């Protein structure tokens, strides 16, 4: 089963060289790899770019990472640092579309502090991209991944994912402006097994293409280890959360696709996520550990 997992495949109407992708936040803005030593990589199906918001975000204070024990997990609070739409357009988007086409399909990871920020950003991006890029399977961009584990300033900081009606409204509005681009919704590892099923159904009903299971698990390391106080746990332990969430929804939401993410560190782990019901396997922490991870797979 494992070896059949590698190799070209189709997902949401597009060909990918492999179902194994780089997860958001762990492959920078892709240009680091373009400029650096480690492209092309075999077996890298696509790259999800770092989280982008409409306004620039300076991110969290240092220290931003803390490794728990030896290999237990990594806690990060990067604080979603990003250049915002305008600078993203000049620094990256134009480069990708005009001068230096990426070797891999890119997904855009999106977040906001209010529903209208998500909407404005997606609308702006779709506009820019459709202006300059071929649409469809040869295009630079493949779709949007929506990070909904963000504090909603209109709801006193409660995450978008935690209020069903807020979630419903957000997804409906995103669908309205996203002109049939594939949309993945990315959920937190902290979703309960019953909660995720309910929310996955909302996704399916809103015409969302798939869900990414999962983002990091909220965690608070001992005092002083993380500048912001608390952060998100990634790495080995997250595998059990990802598998739990995948199994909770697999086969119960029509043709809603499932993208696994969390603790994947090789083909064995990807195979387990596949048996549970996932089609795509995103790799985060393991790429930081071993940037040639994809190339080394076999």
């Amino acid at each position: 089963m494992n070896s059949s997992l590698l190799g070209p495949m189709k997902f949401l109407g597009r060909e990918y060289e492999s179902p194994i992708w780089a997860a958001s936040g762990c492959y920078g803005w892709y240009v680091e790899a373009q400029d650096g030593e480690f492209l092309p990589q075999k077996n890298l199906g696509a790259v999800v770019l770092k989280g982008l918001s409409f306004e620039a975000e300076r991110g969290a204070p240092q220290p931003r990472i803390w490794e728990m024990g030896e290999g237990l997990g990594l806690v990060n609070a990067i604080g979603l640092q990003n250049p915002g739409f305008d600078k993203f357009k000049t620094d990256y988007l134009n480069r990708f579309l005009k001068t230096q086409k990426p070797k891999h399909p890119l997904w855009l990871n999106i977040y906001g502090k209010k529903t209208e920020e998500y909407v404005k950003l997606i609308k702006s991006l779709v506009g820019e991209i459709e202006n300059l890029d071929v649409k469809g399977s040869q295009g630079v961009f493949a779709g949007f991944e929506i990070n909904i584990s963000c504090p909603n300033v209109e709801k006193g900081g409660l995450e978008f994912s935690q209020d069903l009606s807020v979630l419903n409204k957000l997804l409906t509005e995103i669908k309205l402006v996203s002109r049939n681009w594939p949309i993945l919704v990315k959920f937190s590892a902290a979703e309960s097994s019953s909660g995720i099923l309910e929310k996955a159904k909302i996704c399916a009903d809103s015409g969302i293409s798939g869900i990414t299971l999962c983002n990091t698990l909220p965690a608070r390391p001992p005092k002083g280890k993380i500048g912001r106080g608390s952060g998100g746990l990634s790495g080995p332990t997250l595998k059990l959360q990802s598998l739990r969430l995948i199994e909770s929804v697999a086969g119960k939401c029509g043709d809603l696709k499932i993208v696994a993410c969390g603790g994947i560190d090789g083909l064995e782990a990807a195979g387990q996520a596949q048996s549970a019901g996932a089609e795509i396997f995103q790799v985060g922490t393991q790429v930081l550990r071993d940037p040639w991870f994809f190339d080394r797979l076999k």
Partner: protein
Amino acid sequence: MADVNGNELLSFHAKSWSEWPGRLVKPPRRGSEIDFHFNIEVPGFRAWTPGQFVMLRWGQHLTGRPFAIFEWKQAGPNSSQLHLLIRNAGEGTAEFIKNAQAQDLVWVRGPLGQVPFAADLTEDLRPWIFLSEGARLAGVFAMIHLRRKLQLQQQLPTDFWWHTETRKEFMDAEIHSRAYVKPDAIGFSETQILIPENLDLTKYSKVIAVGSEDFQNSWAKLANQYSNLDGNLWLRRDAPMACGIGLCFSCTVETAQGPQRSCLEGPWFEGSLK
């Protein structure tokens, strides 16, 4: 650029890095009470610049830890010897120093980081001063070493100010580290950052400093009073790193140019600390 043995050592525009499974040549050798000298055999080599660093990963750790390249010598077509000076700074380094054995596997990713003033290292004939604190000596040692060596042939005046917590720490250090320190250019204090009195910075064309935030702040404050140092104060801005190659934004520091990744845009930044 060749070292005393004629080995081609340095390329000042090194942009390429790689990753190899290295092996400890021997157990770490104690430098001072808390600093240890690691000698690693690497099955490969890349040209490097003094001031660059490597990410080192050992044991079960998920991520590597950054360490300045103290020395890195090619030994054959596919082998080299990498020297690091590692301080017992936290759980990871403490455990490593305690248990490391000859032949242990360590992953070496490097050389990493930019050293924008690297070309001037061998070309600027005016006096420079290097400042460092404790084990961070490793971060400037390769540069001092280079300028001192070339001073034998040319004029590359180089002063070095080293701050250690105790005189013992100083005396325990490698003999060649001490050799570069003038008797009046060493500070000992456990409690405060010492800046030598009556130090005249007007004679220097560059100040290169690496130390704790406190240490660097003290020097930056001083240096900012000298107009000759505008644009010539370089600080290594350390932050915990996960990837070392710009992917994760763990290592962002505030600089005059806004938030920058220490590993990719840095670790050397010009100007005052933010």
